[in-house]
């Protein structure tokens, strides 16, 4: 019997390790794609020239290295894969001119060569640790994946190939690689590596520490603990001047911060420290609250240092 909780845990695990899983999947697909492509080229001259075997050989080695290396630099990996994929696709589309020179095919091939070139240039910038044109690369990859899917589903297989399943598997790997590239491009580590994303991330941290959005709320339990100054949420201090300490998350719709509240010996105030993410604290928003007022479904924090904050109390 399938247990819903186990399925959720499994999906969560997939979500947490998605970058690693996508990298390894990409390497595995690249390995299979390269090996089958070499086989198809040497036996059936599928790509119209043996020069492409060098590129497939390089990707085979690269895929093996990725599969057996524990620590992988995602940017460089994406960069190398994108470049190799782009070179191969560019060469394949270029070679296609020699066996089908109808106007329609020439136009389609030129478009796809342009997309491959875009992918190659973007991949090269990834190689040197610079994330650029993420969206255009995702769009190019999606278009190329849809095109390959369309070719595989609706067009007849190349007549030169006797072993159709190898060709099908090869094309499925190619589609899979495009999907992996799209997935990797959407991972947080890549998404927040563009110049503007890095700046916005810093500003977001600052914002989380110093502001809360108008819908920011605490639970009823936290609100009562703050007003009454006694609750199971309060834990004894870890020594020094701290008598008791409690933690809660102040969550709005676009802001989220971790708050530490401390009671010190011989002091009636509550000391708040607001930080963006859990962990070490150096810079943080710090303020003292002298009195806390509970009003309907709101709690108001007032301090002599100028603190005056009103938070919602959620059901």
């Amino acid at each position: 019997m399938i247990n819903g909780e186990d399925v959720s845990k499994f999906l969560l695990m997939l979500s947490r390790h998605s970058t690693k899983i996508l990298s390894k999947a990409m390497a595995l697909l690249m390995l299979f794609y390269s090996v089958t492509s070499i086989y198809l080229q040497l036996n059936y001259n599928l790509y119209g020239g043996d020069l492409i075997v060098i590129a497939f050989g390089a990707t085979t080695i690269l895929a093996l290295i990725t599969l057996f290396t524990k620590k992988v630099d995602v940017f460089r990996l994406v960069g190398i894969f994108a470049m190799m994929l782009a070179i191969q696709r560019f060469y394949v589309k270029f070679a296609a001119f020699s066996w089908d020179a109808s106007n329609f095919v020439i136009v389609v091939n030129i478009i796809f060569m342009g997309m491959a070139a875009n992918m190659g240039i973007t991949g090269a910038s990834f190689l040197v640790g610079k994330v650029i044109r993420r969206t255009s690369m995702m769009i190019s990859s999606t278009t190329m994946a849809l095109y390959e899917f369309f070719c595989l589903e609706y067009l007849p297989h190349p007549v030169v190939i006797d072993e159709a399943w190898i060709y099908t598997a090869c094309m499925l790997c190619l589609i899979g690689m495009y999907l992996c590239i799209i997935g990797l491009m959407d991972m947080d580590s890549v998404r927040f590596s563009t110049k503007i994303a890095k700046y916005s991330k810093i500003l977001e941290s600052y914002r989380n520490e110093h502001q809360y959005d108008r819908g920011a709320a605490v639970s009823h339990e936290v609100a009562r603990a703050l007003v009454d100054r006694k609750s199971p949420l309060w834990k004894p201090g870890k020594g020094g001047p701290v008598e008791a300490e409690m933690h809660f998350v102040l969550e709005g719709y676009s802001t989220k911060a971790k708050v530490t509240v401390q009671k010190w010996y011989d002091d009636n105030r509550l000391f708040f420290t607001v930080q963006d993410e859990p962990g070490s604290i150096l810079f943080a928003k710090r303020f003292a609250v002298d009195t806390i007022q509970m009003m309907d479904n709101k709690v108001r924090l007032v301090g002599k240092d100028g603190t005056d904050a009103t938070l919602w109390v959620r059901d």
Partner: protein
Amino acid sequence: MDVKGSWNEYQANRGYNLYSRTITILLGVVSIVTGVICLAWVIYSHLDGHMDFNACPLLIISGILVIVYSKRPPRYAVTITAMTLALIVFFKMVSALDTRSLTNLLVMSLYTVAMMIAAVSYFLGNRHNAWRITILVALHGALCVANIAFVLYLNTPWTELWTRCPEDIASLAFCLVFIYYLMQPAVKEDSINKLMKTGVSTLESVAVSRPSVYITEASLKEMLGQTISTWKFYKEGPLVSEGRSEIIDKKQVFECSSKVWRGENFIRVSFDRDVRDRTFGNGFEIRYITYADEALGRFVYLYGREGFFIKLRVVSEEEKVEEDEIETESYDEVDVR
């Protein structure tokens, strides 16, 4: 509450209110209606034994759950609906095992897994998944459009479209409503540009003030307690009294709160710039006041302790009107450019 009032509250709090709840309920209702139409279509087409028959009630159940949980945060509605869509595609995949190609089945299974991962991850707080779910739902919608277009391509008149592919039309409506729901500010993740904008706005509201900031004479009197039209007096508690005033910074204002604490004989002022988000408050205490006429106008100096002071230009009501006109003109100039 009127529609405008609820919209304003929505804008202010970006959260659980009449407007967002209405959209959530709409999503639930559309799910139920789509489920009923699909179920009726399956029965009418004598596909009762088909796996599709099992998929349709899922939409009805999920619609009911979405309505039941409409008071909860949006992640409940998003996860329930996304999971339902994933399961429907899964059922369709299982029912088409014998008829569809391997490529098609692989794509469908990948769709199911991707949607499920995105739904679980969204439920646990990664709001970027709203974008991923949107793209997956849009793909589903595009497939419905393709089916409808195909039926039209077969020379089917527009009038017969509803009888030929009701399932696709209902599913398309469901996808559009779900995408609209996913695009709500409280549901989707802020874009990087928006994060940048709000971040800069935070920095401005916490750390930047222009030299042109001013206070009106009437507001200054309220701040200093010389007039008490906004002041409240408390018999109990740590506060004796509290009054409101404002400092004007171009089109924005700093909302100020002057407080006298029990056992103290001076005023403490908290201020917060009136922008989309709130700060925890900044403040100063007023121990000594002086006025000075300078080249740029009349200024008030509010001194605190240990060298701290605030310097504000004081303007009369007439001067304030002129200031506002000048500012409006300069804003217009910027707009024109």
